[in-house]
């Protein structure tokens, strides 16, 4: 099966500033990919290109289409939630359902109503009268009722409280995700999506720093907390990043000799968040 998303030399400039610098990546069907990066790294720019919301340079195919030229056609099979609370305030919940049912061939009205029933938000209410968390749940219900091949989420829970964030991801996991879905997600709160992801793409300053599956992280990366006594020998194994922790140093290794590392201390697989910090810091120092 061909990749759902395929980018080659994807570049985006704003004036003289380069937001995306010839990046290559691919998203395979059935995966849940986290696009992770610090503020201003180019995440949103990359997603906007994928969704056809902005023009770009380079090659980009999403579901076999050219997103910018064919956004309307693409949106038959792909959908997105970009940012929090973007539903218009004047719209009533039932009007939103009616409208999407009217224009979207893959929208299932009963499904949306079923999902909304769980949230106890009345259909007659105006979006503007709902809390930020409720707006997000309405948008999620509308989106999950679309039988899309690709779902893109750009900071879908930014600024929501912990209950609303948890509710969002619980609904996504329990009511939406299955092996036929492909999701591309960006968020600052890496910890919250960490166990959902099958793949991660780290991006910093418009370049890709890491692109690998979560299973591969364990095979490729290791972290060891090393005391001062063994620090010199451990550093000889060429860690790419180190940070202090409780009087020791945590050293991060890429494709190490796992047998040798065991001599310095307990070898663990770094979490996605830790690996992200290590990779980005290393990339910036280099």
């Amino acid at each position, binding site marked *: 099966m061909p990749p759902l998303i395929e980018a080659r030399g994807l570049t985006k400039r704003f004036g003289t500033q380069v937001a995306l610098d010839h990046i290559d990546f691919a998203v395979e069907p059935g995966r849940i990919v986290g696009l992770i990066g610090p503020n201003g790294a180019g995440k949103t720019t990359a997603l*906007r290109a994928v*969704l056809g*919301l*902005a*023009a770009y340079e380079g090659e980009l195919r999403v579901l076999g289409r050219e997103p*910018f030229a064919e*956004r*309307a*056609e*693409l*949106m*038959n099979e792909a*959908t*997105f*939630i*970009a*940012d929090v609370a*973007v*539903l*218009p*305030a*004047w*719209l*009533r919940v039932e*009007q939103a359902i009616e*409208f*999407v049912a*009217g*224009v*979207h*061939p893959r929208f299932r009205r009963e499904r949306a109503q079923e999902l909304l029933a769980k949230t106890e938000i009345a259909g007659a209410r105006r979006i503007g009268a709902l809390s930020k968390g409720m707006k997000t749940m309405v*948008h999620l219900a509308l*989106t999950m009722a679309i039988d899309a091949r690709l779902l893109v989420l750009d900071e879908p829970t930014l600024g929501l409280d912990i209950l609303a964030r948890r509710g969002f991801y619980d609904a996504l996991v329990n009511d939406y995700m299955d092996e036929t879905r492909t999701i591309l997600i960006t968020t600052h709160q890496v910890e919250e999506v960490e166990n959902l992801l099958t793949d991660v793409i780290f991006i910093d300053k418009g370049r890709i720093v890491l692109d690998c599956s979560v299973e591969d992280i364990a095979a490729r990366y290791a972290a060891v907390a090393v005391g001062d006594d063994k620090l010199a020998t451990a550093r000889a194994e060429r860690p790419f990043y180190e940070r202090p922790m409780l009087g020791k140093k945590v050293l991060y290794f890429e494709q190490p000799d796992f047998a040798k590392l065991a001599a310095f201390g307990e070898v663990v697989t770094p979490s996605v968040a830790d690996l992200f910090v290590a990779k980005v810091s290393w990339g910036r120092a280099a």
Partner: protein
Amino acid sequence: MKNYVWLVRREFWENKAIWIMPCCIGGALTIAALFGRVEIDLPNLPQQNRSVAAMALFAFGAVFYVAMSIYSCWYLLECLHADRKDRSVLFWKSMPISDTATVLSKLFVGLIAVPAVYFAAADLATLLMAGILSARMSLGGALSHAAFWQPTFWLQLQVLWLYVILTTAIWFLPISGWLLVVSAWAKRAVVLWAILPPLAAMLAEHLFLRTHVIASVLNGRLLAGYRQAAFYDPLPHHEWSLRAGDPAAALESSWRQLDLASFLSNPQTWIGLICGAALIGAAIQLRMRRAEA
């Protein structure tokens, strides 16, 4: 086509002023007709009674027309800006609807749907007014109560309004296109962006070239130009105003004034149509590229 119906419905959901404003105007006129002081001092000649009544009906319609023109301009200027401002454009763009369809549906609402609503409201209101006024007149004895019931004039007025809606939609297409471009482009202050650049261009032309080409082009496109293009004009300075010698007589034969043939054969009509289409195309391109205010 189905998408267009939904897009237009969506505009009516969002912009309740489309029907609330004409209802308010109609309501205000009805109240005025019911309780206002009516002082028309005329010799009691049937022909002049009829003329005054015709003028009154025309004037009521004109009130709606002026309000409609202002609202339509505002609507076109705000329609592509509002959903960038509240970021809901990120929701609308997740629907399988092209930006071309979005822009054209808004143009349709501004040029056809809004005028149609005002037209219907004006008809309803003038019928009410005619009924109320003729009842009051016949009670007071100032005018013959038949004055307001002139089927021929009524029909002429309908034709006049329809003709005006269609020809203004065509003639002012460059203006509408410009408003859409500003609406799709400006981050804020859409009204200023709509007005200042043409003014600045005129001023710059005057300062550096000492010519007034832009000013005369704009002037020719605005009201004076429209009246010349769309109406047969036998008398110099003939106007639809009370100033002319016998306005009602001219009005009563208003459809003899409609000059569709010369409107359609006027090169200015077609130049305007082409410029308008180009500006609308530009608005669509901007809409494709701008996802944020």
